[in-house]
């Protein structure tokens, strides 16, 4: 049973749609529906009235100036913070009352802005930890090295290698995760998240610290991941070439509120977005 052999349901039609959900996903239930999502820290409203729908196989971008609340949205989706208001439906299921672990089982996996790998463990072990809920055997089986242990460990090894292959990282399998260069650490985080078999993958600044050629590779790989696993990907990124290049729907956040939603070309021409990024024209004039 290979993880990469998921059957494709529909033919990919990379048609940009005017709705934030791409056309090919329109007749399918969305993977993520947020309505009126919000959180307050003390008296401060960090995110307010956040409404967003992400399609089954959509690549969605979440952009905005620093401090706009983008990572907070990810933290709300993965229940690192419990929302103060609003609902989050993952695959049609309300995640109210769920914790981070349960949300992952419901289908959301993520990477982190400040990389959070298991530094002291090997690259392969990092991926195997991602496979934790995919390849299971009881503790006893491990302690007493029962047949189940050998079988499942072999499977875990093969799956881990297969996943590492996406980024061509098999050769690094025995390296300590903490010793990898920055770009490789970011890629490993994506692999680990993928290993937990998500239907929605959240990438928090995946291209941060990468050079243009690495970024180009990353873009290709993000598309490849979407096309092989048929999952939705939502990403936060400051590199506009990446966002405009691969995102089908873009959502712009400023001061915790959505100021614009639409396709890349719509966003590029939206005066509110230009104002948020460059400041008001009137003030200068």
């Amino acid at each position, binding site marked *: 049973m290979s993880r990469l052999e998921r059957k494709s349901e529909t033919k990919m039609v990379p048609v940009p749609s005017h709705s934030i959900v791409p056309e090919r996903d329109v007749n399918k239930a969305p993977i993520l529906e947020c309505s009126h999502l919000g959180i307050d820290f003390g008296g401060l409203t960090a995110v307010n009235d956040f409404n967003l729908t992400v399609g089954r196989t959509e690549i969605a971008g979440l952009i905005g100036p620093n401090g706009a609340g983008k*990572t907070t949205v990810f*933290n709300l989706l993965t229940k*690192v913070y419990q929302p103060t208001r609003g609902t989050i439906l993952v695959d049609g299921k309300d995640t109210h009352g769920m914790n981070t672990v349960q949300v992952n089982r419901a289908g959301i996996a993520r990477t*982190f802005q400040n990389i959070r790998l298991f530094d002291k463990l090997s690259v392969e072990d990092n991926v195997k930890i991602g496979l934790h809920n995919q390849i299971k055997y009881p503790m006893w089986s491990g302690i007493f090295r029962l047949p189940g242990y050998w079988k499942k460990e072999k499977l875990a090894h093969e799956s881990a290698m297969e996943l590492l292959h996406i980024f061509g990282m098999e050769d690094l399998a025995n390296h300590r995760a903490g010793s990898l260069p920055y770009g490789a650490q970011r890629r490993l985080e994506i692999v680990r998240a993928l290993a937990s078999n998500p239907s929605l993958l959240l990438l928090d600044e995946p291209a941060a610290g990468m050079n243009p050629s690495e970024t180009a590779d990353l873009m290709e790989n993000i598309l490849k991941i979407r096309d092989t696993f048929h999952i939705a990907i939502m990403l936060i990124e400051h590199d506009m070439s990446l966002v405009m290049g691969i995102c089908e729907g873009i959502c712009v956040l400023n001061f915790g509120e959505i100021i614009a939603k639409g396709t890349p070309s719509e966003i590029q021409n939206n005066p509110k977005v230009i104002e948020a990024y460059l400041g008001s024209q009137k003030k200068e004039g």
Partner: protein
Amino acid sequence: MDFSSLLLGLLDNLIRGLSLGSVYAIIALGYTMVYGIAKMLNFAHGDVIMVGAYVCFFAISTYGLPPVIGILLSMVVCTALGIVIERLAYKPLRQAPSLAVLITAIGVSYFLQNAAQLLWTSSPKVFPSVVPKGNLTLFDGQLSISYLTIVTIVVCVIIMLVLTFFTNSTKMGKAMRACSEDKGAAQLMGIDVNATISITFAIGSALAAVAGVLLCSAYPSLTPTTGSMPGIKAFTAAVFGGIGSIPGALLGGLLLGIIEIFAGSYISTQLSNAIVFGVLIIVLLVKPAGLLGKKIREKV
């Protein structure tokens, strides 16, 4: 009649609890200040108490000095001891993992206990009270409070007031608070972090001397291990109140003393320690950062 004697009993226990709690609070202040600034559990703190008590004992009993001189002498010795310990054992480990520092502190604790045993043998010394014996009687002699009890509580209140003033209003106190928030930033602001940490140890150790003298005046049997159990309990008190918080140490110490005395009087003396620790566990489960501690949220 029965009711009033019950009430008097409660009052008596409350005052005894406050007195014991005051001693715990004074020790806990030392723990909490050191923890706040150096982020380390100074397990040797309890043994500094013991050294302070011995110094005072010899000053009074052997050299016949007046109690006030004895206390001052023991404060001076403990202050010096605290600074020396910090410089020799903890300062080289500023960057080391916290467990390494913890084990070193335990090593220092062993060292002090065993050095005391060599110097002064393990046979208990009968500690002379530094406060004149006698009682204050109230309610026609139905309630008597020893002068020592009163002095202990008063000393604790004074120390608390002085420390609060010191940390809030003096330059040095502000430097201490700055260091406990962020050492790097404090250094950039021109604060001598090493000196500040030394002073914190000095103050904590001087307080330990006072606590040692008061403790041994109340429980006059002095041995090299006298400091360990009160040390652990005061440590518990500091955590109870929220480690790093000065009012927390006071609150934790007083509550711990009161719980211990009440548990001993009304439930069982054998079980009083277990009850104290049981209450601590329950408090921490309800308030994981202690009564007055701040919960720090990890940034994601």
